């Protein structure tokens, strides 16, 4: 599991929007993974298996705290991340911030699919396993996520046609 620790933590960051929540969720997920390690049939599937546990843990935790954390606070965490970025050209930084906000405000199903595909470079099969939906749904979610992103960034940037 250790080789996939960063991948697990990264997914948790994007699903919880919060560094310490992500740390807690990853820790819980590893505890579970250690406990149920014997159920893992194939080591090559270890990453997808761990990410699936992380995902369930993140959503489980969020249901618990959803009443106490307003959406505004979630957005603020996003801005903290922006402030942590090292200095880059202001225009590019602004665009990157828009991208982060656009991704953060995608519905869960679209965001997790997009992150797993574009950031974690998971295959469609792996994403289907992790998010527990058929491959056809993975593909349509990916397409919808890209269309939404392009729409919310309209005027800022134009994208190459690369759907499929």
């Amino acid at each position: 599991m250790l080789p996939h620790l960063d991948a697990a933590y990264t997914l948790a960051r994007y699903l919880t929007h919060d560094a310490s929540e992500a740390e807690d969720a990853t820790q819980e997920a590893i505890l579970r993974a250690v406990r149920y390690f014997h159920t893992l049939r194939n080591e090559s599937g270890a990453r997808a298996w761990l990410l699936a546990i992380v995902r369930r843990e993140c959503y489980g935790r969020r249901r618990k705290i959803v009443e106490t954390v307003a959406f505004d606070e979630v957005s603020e965490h996003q801005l903290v991340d922006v402030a942590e970025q090292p200095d880059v050209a202001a225009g590019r930084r602004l665009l990157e911030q828009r991208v982060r906000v656009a991704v953060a405000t995608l519905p869960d199903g679209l965001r997790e699919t997009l992150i797993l595909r574009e950031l974690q470079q998971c295959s469609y099969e792996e994403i289907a396993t992790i998010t527990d939906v058929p491959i056809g749904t993975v593909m349509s979610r990916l397409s919808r996520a890209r269309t939404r992103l392009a729409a919310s960034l309209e005027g800022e940037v134009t994208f190459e046609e690369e759907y499929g």
Partner: protein
Amino acid sequence: MTPEPPRSMGALLREALPSYKAPDALRAWAQTQASSAPIAYDRPRAWRPLRRFAYAATFVVAAAIGWMGHDLVAMSRTDATARSALVSSLVDTHVRSLMAGHVTDVQSSDHHTVKPWFAGKVTFAPPVPELAARGFPLVGGRLDYVSGHTAAALVYGRGLHTINLFIWPASTSDADVPTASYNGYSLVHWTDRGLSYWAVSDAAAPELAAFERAYIAGAAQ
């Protein structure tokens, strides 16, 4: 403003969205979990050869002591027990410093800040070389207490790993066994100009050996 050329969405996403590194404390904790798992397929490979080396070293030391006579045997048995207690408490202190998120009391990559901080807190002046150019950036320092020693702990980074370097005045009893491993952590020990050094990290043993060389070279400058 001229219109920008069309961009690849995938490339822009990878630029804009950071991939995060798990915090050191979480990594250290995960390593302890992985090494106690029924089928830990990552850690054991990393430290089994080291452990074999430690056994071999222990055997050589025991054989040498046996040749030197019975009185010494009795004496060194207690030494060996004390040493393994020291090794485990060094690793415990290392792990605790990462878990508590309290790695440094003085956090600075500037040795002119870290070195004076120890003045008046310990009765010796540990060298604080800057080793960033050798791949070990200085993170900071703190005071610690290890097995009856008030120690200056210097904290250096190595990629994602944290190295705790514990320093206290050397005594004749601790000048042996240069390397050890415990629970998957590596330790390196040396003495130099009256000070005893123990470096502890989850980094691989060769990296820790490289750290020892870099530190000694840096301290001599």
